[in-house]
C-alpha cells in the first residue's frame, strides 16, 4: 500500500520514465530508420521534460518581473515625482497596517497563540510589500535556458539523421535497416 501511495505521489516522474523507455525501445528495436529517429526525438523531449519539471515550484509563476516589482528591486535608482508620491502612499499604508496590528495585539491579551499567529501573518504581509521579489514566487529559469539549448541541439541531430537516411536511400533504395544490412552482406 505504501509502495502504491509513493507511486501515485510521483506519477509524473513515472510517466517521464515511461516516455523515455518508449523512445529507447524505438531507437533499438524499430527496423525503419525514420521510426528510429522519431524514437530519438521522443527520448530527447522526455529528458527535457524531466529537467523542466525540476525547475517548477508549487504556486510559482513564470520567471518574468513586472514593472512595479522591478521598481522595488532598484530602489536607489532615480524616480520621477509621481513614483515618489506612489512610494509615500505605500509607506503610509504600511504605517497604518502596523498601527492596526498594535491595536489588535492589545485586544488579544490572553490569547498568546492567536496573537502569535496574527503577528507572523502581518509580518509576512509587511515583507511582501516592502521587498517584492522572492525567488520562491518564480520558476527556476536556469533549467529553462539549458533546455532551450537542448531543444535546438535535438532538432540539429534529427536533421543530420534524416540527411543520412536520404543518402542511404539513394545508395540502397530502402530505409529498412534489415534490407540495407542484407545488401551490404551480399555485396549488392
Amino acid at each position: 500500500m505504501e509502495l502504491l501511495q509513493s507511486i501515485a505521489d510521483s506519477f509524473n516522474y513515472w510517466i517521464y520514465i515511461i516516455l523515455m523507455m518508449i523512445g529507447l525501445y524505438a531507437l533499438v528495436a524499430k527496423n525503419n530508420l525514420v521510426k528510429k529517429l522519431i524514437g530519438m526525438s521522443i527520448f530527447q523531449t522526455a529528458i527535457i521534460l524531466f529537467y523542466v519539471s525540476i525547475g517548477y515550484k508549487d504556486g510559482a509563476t513564470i520567471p518574468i518581473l513586472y514593472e512595479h516589482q522591478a521598481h522595488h528591486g532598484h530602489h536607489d535608482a532615480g524616480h520621477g515625482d509621481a513614483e515618489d508620491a506612489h512610494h509615500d502612499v505605500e509607506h503610509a499604508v504600511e504605517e497604518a497596517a502596523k498601527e492596526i496590528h498594535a491595536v489588535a495585539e492589545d485586544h488579544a491579551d490572553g490569547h498568546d497563540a492567536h496573537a502569535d499567529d496574527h503577528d507572523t501573518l502581518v509580518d509576512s504581509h509587511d515583507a511582501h510589500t516592502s521587498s517584492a521579489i522572492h525567488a520562491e514566487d518564480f520558476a527556476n529559469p536556469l533549467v529553462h535556458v539549458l533546455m532551450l539549448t537542448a531543444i535546438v541541439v535535438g532538432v540539429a541531430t534529427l536533421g543530420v539523421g534524416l540527411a543520412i537516411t536520404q543518402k542511404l536511400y539513394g545508395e540502397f533504395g530502402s530505409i529498412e535497416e534489415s534490407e540495407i544490412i542484407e545488401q551490404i552482406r551480399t555485396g549488392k
Partner: protein
Amino acid sequence: MIWIFDLIILVFLVITAIISLQVKDLLSAAMILGVYSFLMCLLWSGMGAVDVAFTEAAVGAGVSAVFLISTVLRTSRRSSD
C-alpha cells in the same frame, strides 16, 4: 499546475508517442509526432517555462515535422513496422 490537467496531458503524451511509433504510414507518424510536440508545449507552458514552450512549438512541432515530411517525400512512405 493543476494535477488533473497535468495527468490528462501526460496520458495523451504516452498515447501519441506509442501511436506515432506503431503506425505503418510514415507521413501519419510525422503528423502524430507534431501532436506530441504540441502537447509537450502545453505541459511546459503550464510549468512556467514559456520560453521553452514556444521554442518547442516553433521548432518541435514546426521544423522537425517539415524535416520528417520532406524526408518521407524523398524516400518511401511505407514502413515495415
